[in-house]
């Protein structure tokens, strides 16, 4: 119990403590007394810079409160965190496709949430064009939280807790959908994962070094995977086919562009934290990394728009020997960011409180 309290306090300290960055980095967004967002040294500049939504500690806390609150769903049964779980890098463990209200099964695998501030487009098909509007589909889709915005805003306006929290965060009690979305973004936009072993090696941090298997895996990765899963985000954010089906049931990118050439293309997912974010692919068809690597090695279908990178040899795919698969897996595990997965700043504060009482 005491230890947990300490961890929690450390989390708050983390939030308060990062202000050591302020003034130092021009890419840190100074919120007056706190900096919650800092571009990691080995990252490019973010796309989203909290313009028009100045980051504050109270805004972040409100966003976190909302993220973990089932009040947002129609029957008050499901919060964002039901599908986006921290220990799974904010993906949904063990669920190939999302699980919404009334046990409704969606059609797509819940993606992990981190480094969203570097994304211009969201969802597997890239249909959403701004981080601030990315929660809308989940909030209103019949198969996710099944609610509507007027109802949600009404609930928040009737809650003394939220009246106070919105007042603290935005200095107004006039709650509307815009402030709800901005607050959620202050939470989701600050979910940064950049402290995996890989990052420490890249930043030449004290004592950080790949072992020989990981190093061999990294060399393979750069040769065979990095064209799409590009460092340091481990995605180039493009839409491609890696040959899951000859003709995909889910139209993917075509849903958005209305171009048959985009049928069955999906956003290249980041491979950060991939060790813990399974199941894999847009429909969650693979349970583990071994199955994924076997797919690349020998299981690939050959749709017309299969990515050209998979076409050079006699059969589609990337030939990987057992040894190479072992090496690649070892490297992929260096992308697991344990600090991020256990960061108390991103946890449900209610859970903590219940444990203390």
């Amino acid at each position, binding site marked *: 119990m005491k230890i947990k309290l300490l961890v929690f306090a450390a989390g708050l300290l983390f939030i308060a403590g990062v202000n050591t960055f302020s003034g130092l980095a021009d890419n840190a967004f100074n919120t007056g007394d706190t900096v919650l967002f800092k571009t990691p040294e080995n990252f490019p500049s973010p796309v989203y810079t909290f313009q*028009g*939504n100045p980051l504050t500690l109270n805004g972040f806390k409100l966003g976190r409160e909302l993220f973990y609150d089932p009040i947002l769903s129609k029957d008050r049964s499901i919060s964002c965190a039901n599908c986006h779980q921290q220990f799974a890098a904010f993906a949904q463990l063990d669920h190939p496709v999302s699980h919404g209200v009334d046990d409704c099964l969606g059609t797509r695998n819940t993606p992990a949430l981190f480094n969203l501030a570097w994304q211009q487009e969201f*969802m597997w098909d890239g*249909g*959403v*064009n*701004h*981080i*601030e*509007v990315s929660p*809308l*589909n989940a*909030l*209103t*889709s019949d198969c996710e939280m099944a609610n*509507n*915005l*007027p109802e949600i*805003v009404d609930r928040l306006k009737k809650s003394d807790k939220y009246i106070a929290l919105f007042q603290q965060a935005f200095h107004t009690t006039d709650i*509307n*959908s*815009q402030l709800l*979305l*901005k607050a959620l*973004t202050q939470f989701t936009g600050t979910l940064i994962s950049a402290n995996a072993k890989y990052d420490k090696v890249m930043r030449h941090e004290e004592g950080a070094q790949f072992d020989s298997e990981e190093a061999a895996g990294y060399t393979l990765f750069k040769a065979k995977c990095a064209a799409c899963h590009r460092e340091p985000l481990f995605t180039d954010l493009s839409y491609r086919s890696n040959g899951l089906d000859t003709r995909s049931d889910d139209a993917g990118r075509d*849903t*958005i*562009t*209305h*171009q048959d050439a985009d049928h069955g293309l999906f956003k290249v997912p980041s491979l950060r934290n991939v060790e813990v974010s399974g199941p894999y692919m847009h429909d969650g068809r693979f349970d583990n990394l071994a199955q994924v690597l076997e797919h690349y090695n020998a299981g690939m279908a050959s749709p017309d728009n299969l990515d050209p990178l998979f076409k050079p040899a006699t059969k589609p795919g990337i030939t990987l020997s057992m040894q190479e698969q072992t090496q690649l897996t070892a490297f992929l595990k260096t992308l697991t960011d344990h600090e991020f997965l256990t960061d108390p700043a991103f946890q449900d504060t209610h859970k903590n409180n219940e444990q203390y009482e």
Partner: protein
Amino acid sequence: MKKSIFLSAIVCLLAGAITAFNTIKADSGELSLNFKHVVNGVPLKLNDNSAHYANANNDEYTVSTFKYYISNITLTTTKGKDVVIPNICFLINAADPASLKQSITGVPAGKYKGISFTIGVDSARNFAGAQTGCLDPANGMFWTWNSGYIFLKLEGYSPQSTAKLHKLTFHVGGIKRQNTLRTFSHSFNKPLQIHGNEPAAISITTDAAALFKGQNLVDFAKLNSTMGGPNAVLIADNYKNGLFSITNVQQGRYEN
């Protein structure tokens, strides 16, 4: 009579800009846009099963929802200068009487030879993240899975529709790939005068039938639903001419 600044719940005002705009009050007046909805010239009645509206393909239909955005209202002075109204947008909803009269205050006094506006919401606003006022996604005019505003929405029923429950669902929007933004413009027979405190008023008739006539024949058995995309372009190309007509202009004048 004195009309104070009238804010309909769904009229959104760019707070800073409108205040600046208002500071020139002495030299400015009010313009009101009054909307009336028809189908082929007959007054539109929502959810009226006895209304036998017909499209150019002779398919019968009824209308349950008809709403749309207009934005970038621009008045052109007789000297050729464009005055852009700073309000971000107006959402007109046939089911909401308050939305049918939109008052714009602080319009620079003067003589205007023409008016134009965008049917929809411009590109910048479609990519700007969470917004409020007329652009609040709570207004039901925002696609959550394919971001961007629905510029115009007509829903209803047709016996010829092959969709579930014979529904018609025409949601028109999208800019980036299949562009459905269209512009309405009109030249006044006689210059529109804005000055003093007696508001000028423009009566606009919106003809819902414009979606289904013009360059593209719409057969409800084949086309009864659009959610952006190429089919929405067909509808927008139809209504770019004929959706709006200006039926009356009342000049503004000094009260004394």
